């Protein structure tokens, strides 16, 4: 299972970087989205894949009785997904506004601020 996930993570990273190297701003955004998915999946894989029970400790106990899934990576990913969703939404609006103002979606045309 971990091998499959690891290959998926690598594929997502490769696809994300490829998309970001294209000249279209929209493809750049798709690349950024893929990159954040890759990072999330990487945390999930790295946190350890385990077929366990929910990490709830019964009343009166101080430790879980059976093997449980580590909840922390999932909490991290949940936070990261929310953040990357918000940021991607902002980036989408930014790209749209840029397209409206500049009339192009070609990164090569965005030269005015370069040095």
């Amino acid at each position, binding site marked *: 299972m971990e091998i499959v996930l690891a290959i998926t993570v690598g594929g997502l990273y490769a696809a994300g970087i490829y998309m970001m190297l294209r000249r279209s701003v929209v493809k750049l955004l798709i690349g950024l989205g893929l990159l954040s998915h890759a*990072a999330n999946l990487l945390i999930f894989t790295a946190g350890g894949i385990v077929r366990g029970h929910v990490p709830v400790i019964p009343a009166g106990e101080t430790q*879980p009785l059976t093997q449980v899934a580590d909840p922390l990576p999932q909490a991290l990913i949940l936070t*990261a997904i929310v953040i990357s969703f918000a940021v991607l939404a902002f980036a989408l609006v930014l790209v749209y506004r840029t397209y409206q103002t500049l009339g192009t979606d070609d990164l090569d045309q965005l030269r005015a601020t370069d040095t």
Partner: protein
Amino acid sequence: MIEQVAIILPIVLPLATMAVLLLVWKSIAAQKVIGVIGSTLLMASAAALICLVNRDGMIVLQVGSWPAPFGITLVADRLSSIMVMLAGLMVFAVSIYSLVMIDDRRVDFGFHPLVQLLLMGVCGAFLTGDLFNLYVWFEVMLIASFVLLTLGGERGQLEGAIKYVTLNLISSAVFLAAIGVIYAATGTLNMADLALKLRSFTDDGTVSVLAMLFLIAFGTKAAVFPLFFWLPASYHTPPAAVSAIFAGLLTKVGVYSLIRAFTLLFVTDLEFTHNLLLLIAGLTMVTGVLGAMAQSEIRRILSFHIVSQIGYMLMGLALYTPLALAGSVFYIIHHIVVKTNLFLIAGIIERRFGTGRLAEIGGLYRSAPVLATLFFLSAMSLAGVPPLSGFFAKLTLIRGGLEAEGYAIVVVALAVSLLTLFSMTKIWAEAFWKPAPEGAATETSQNPYTMFERLSLFGPTLLLVTITVGIGVMAGPVMNASMATAEQLLDPDIYIQAVLPDQYLIESEGDLLIDDSTSEAHGLLPSPRGETH
């Protein structure tokens, strides 16, 4: 109790100010007043935090009373409290300055709430003791900075923002991946706990790989060579008040994270990591200053100078001796004050002429002698002319470099300092010295400013110039504070002991040992490295 309040206030105050600002969204006057009040309060609370840290040493708050490796930890050591103080000071200066410099349309779109949100993110990043929280505070800060950068929607702003947003999102993705890998390797994200666990990784390359991931993530945010190109492309596009606050604070959060990571976490392979840092520091200095020399617009020159000065801050960290690190801390203090001020002055100049291009402006020495004096003092301080603050910051770094026998970096630092002087002279000669060119905006009346504008524009500038001169005059106390900060940074055991007091015992020789009985009692969660696979 008072310590706990003092450490949480720099995060809660901007949040509360932002909430109040959102309530008075319709009234521009109220927004301005509350913005200034909020940053004044933050400055006061930061001053209290500095006093408390000075008196009691490190302050640690376990949020919700969860013990350290599991809960959220806030830590204020000397470096954090100094950084929070500087953040408060800069936002205070900029919020007064923005009373005139930010047009009503931008205030209407929420300039003041965004500044407070940015401040909350910055203070949170300085005070957190947990890597994932650092990521979250980075994102809070970034989303505020994205909107501040694009506020107004002008052509240049949008172009600059595309580059800024993309590069920052990539660095966040790398940071997140690094967090995932470090959690897999150690099973913790608390920085003190990590510092302790990473010590046992000595033989394999795990620590080096992690160090490089964090170097890329933080280095992009700090704008080090070769990851800096988003900075000169975006920092000159927003209104001057916004670039001033960006120039003062945002890259310094990256530098702060680098200092934290490479004094606390990645100190097992100094040969590799810190030599690489030293190389990066030198290249950052040189490329930044060469870029600045090629520019002919005030704020573009200043933007490139941020890059070159990040190199100085890294130099002290890379040399990793008490004196050199004290130089870094001193340099950060000096740089935040001076750089913010130079951007404020650039804004005043641009307001006067409607442009910052050096070819189209001139004659300010005759028509605005006060402004000329303020700029001269700041520019000379940036270049490192005695007796201003920049001189002592550079002197400490150079002495640290000589002491550590890093002669090459000392030569580079001195040469770059000379080139900095050169490009500051360029602004001086073009904007102030030469006569105003034909067609440049000229003064229409004897007194171009109203009293209120004068106070709002020159008040903050004067305050910051006074501080930079003051640091120069009272270099002794600032040096002592930097030295104490550096010594605290170089002894990670202090940090670990403050955050994890009951879990680790100290042997008589001063080595930290894991106390098995207590760590087992805390061991509620399975280790991701253990039998769970």
